[in-house]
């Protein structure tokens, strides 16, 4: 199975870094889509099938928190695996994001950290480049 991934971040630099990490992760990739804010991201989700969302929080127009709230309120996307990739440090906000079923990767991140989160969230355990990655049987973040 190839995964279609949507990367939502207002920084083109960060989107590029995330996409580079995705390509090195060993995850079988389908289409990698990009959006510059939450509103653009929701438009993409209306038109394209997406298996994994990598989401920033602080963005103009619509932030990641609002986008995630709308995704969970939509029956078509309520189960979508989401990894928040953000500098967010507020425990209040992080707790809310966890409640909405998001996994959190804190910026700055080591590529291995993002890769391990991606593999855990997607459940991929047999990757071409890095070999088998242990997936903890703790129910994950979802």
């Amino acid at each position, binding site marked *: 199975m190839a995964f279609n991934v949507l990367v939502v971040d207002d920084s083109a630099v960060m989107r590029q*870094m995330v996409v580079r990490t995705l390509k090195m992760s060993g995850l079988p990739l389908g289409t990698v889509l990009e959006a510059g804010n939450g509103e653009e991201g929701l438009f993409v989700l209306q038109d394209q099938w997406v298996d994994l969302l990598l989401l920033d929080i602080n963005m103009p127009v619509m932030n990641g928190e609002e986008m995630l709230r709308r995704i969970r309120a939509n029956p078509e996307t309520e189960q979508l695996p989401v990894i928040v990739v953000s500098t967010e440090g507020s425990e209040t906000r992080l707790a809310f994001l966890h409640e909405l079923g998001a996994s959190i990767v804190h910026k700055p991140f080591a590529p291995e950290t993002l890769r391990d989160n991606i593999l855990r969230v997607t459940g991929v355990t047999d990757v071409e480049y890095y070999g088998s990655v242990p997936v903890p049987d703790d129910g994950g973040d979802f």
Partner: protein
Amino acid sequence: MVRSLSQTTAATFEDLALLFPDADLTPEQDAMPLDVTVSVDFRGPLTGRLVLRASECVMPAIASNMLGEDESKQVPLQRDALGELANVICGNVLPNIGGAEAVFHLAAPRVHSLGETLSRDEDAPKARATFGVEAGRVEAQLFVFGESDAFAHVAASGA
């Protein structure tokens, strides 16, 4: 606050740009101008601005390490890469000074032209950290605006 800014700046450059800032600058690094300036405004329990400045000669290494060799010569991407570093530094410093529960909103990074005024006349940076990087230097400054009441509250809480 100075220590938090210093540690966060160093860690961000190491983790994101794969560069290793040194707080002990060589005379050559110290003499290099800070040609490029980006800033990130924030609001929340405290309102202010994180300013990050770098020598021009450091920029290709930042872009190359963050984006790959092909992009390292494109000036706009070099600026964007520095802006993202500022964004990450800002996001990581604020919980240290505002408290773990505080929610801050960060604006998108802005690139400033040479000579542009970055702070209001009466403001001095609350913290400043300078490092030698490659053949040049980088400097992070944290400005807190209108801080009298809010800052006293945060400081009293021990954040």
